């Protein structure tokens, strides 16, 4: 059993991961969407959702997660998130004459769609931050494979 490349951690970790993943995703989405009413915002929510995927990587190994969200899809999502921020800024420049102008109606406070372009920004930041931190972790996890084999070579 020792020689086989064991992907992911023990059974206990896997079952706990299955339980936690749902809560993390929902809480992350809540933090992002209600960022302008309660504490939170695009950034913490995005990192929370990235941490959910990183937890899957740690528990089940890289291959399982790659099937869900591959490295290339991650970097494309990262670029799209960044593009969304800039395009929103340019729309503000076009409509309001100044970059990043809040061109959407303000709505009534305490409602979900209440603060103009803030909610769209939160979504764009969530996409960008979540995807970029996920692919950085993938890059570091890939490298781990190479260095680990180095240790095993030294043993035998």
């Amino acid at each position, binding site marked *: 059993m020792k020689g086989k490349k064991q992907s992911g951690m023990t059974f206990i970790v896997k079952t706990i991961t299955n339980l936690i993943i749902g809560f993390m995703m929902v809480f992350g989405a809540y933090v992002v969407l209600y960022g302008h009413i309660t504490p939170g915002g695009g950034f913490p929510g995005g990192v929370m959702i990235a941490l959910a995927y990183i937890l899957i990587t740690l528990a089940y190994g890289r291959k399982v997660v790659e099937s869900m969200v591959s490295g290339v899809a991650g970097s494309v999502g990262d670029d799209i998130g960044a593009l969304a921020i800039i395009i929103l800024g340019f729309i503000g420049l076009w409509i309001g004459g100044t970059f990043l102008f809040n061109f959407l109606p303000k709505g009534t*406070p305490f409602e979900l769609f209440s603060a103009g372009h803030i909610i769209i920004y939160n979504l764009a930041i969530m996409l960008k931050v979540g995807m970029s931190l996920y692919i950085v972790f993938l890059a570091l996890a890939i*490298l781990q494979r190479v260095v680990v084999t180095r240790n095993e070579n030294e043993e035998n």
Partner: protein
Amino acid sequence: MTLYFLNFVLLIIGLYALVFKRHIVKKILGVAIMEYAVNLFLILLGFRKSGVPPILMKDMDMATFIRTAVDPLPQALVLTSIVIGLGTLALMVAMAIRLYERYGTFDMDEIKRLRG
């Protein structure tokens, strides 16, 4: 006032780790400690005695809220500074791994010697 001073001591500890420790990861930890100290300093500046978080609840009326709310501007600055700290940390960890791969050691003086 003593909180500002204790925070400055924390900054000095981070600076000590960064300058005098020779292990690369210790230097990275030193930078992280200094980031914590600076972020804490900015939030300490914005604190208001018996202050309320700057988030309006449904039942709050505006007048008391404006009189007691904590300063939101340093919090905006700290959110950006935490992200910058995370970005720098990711770059430092990547460099530390590649440096270890190249030199086989984490000791900066050893690396300087090997570099010739």
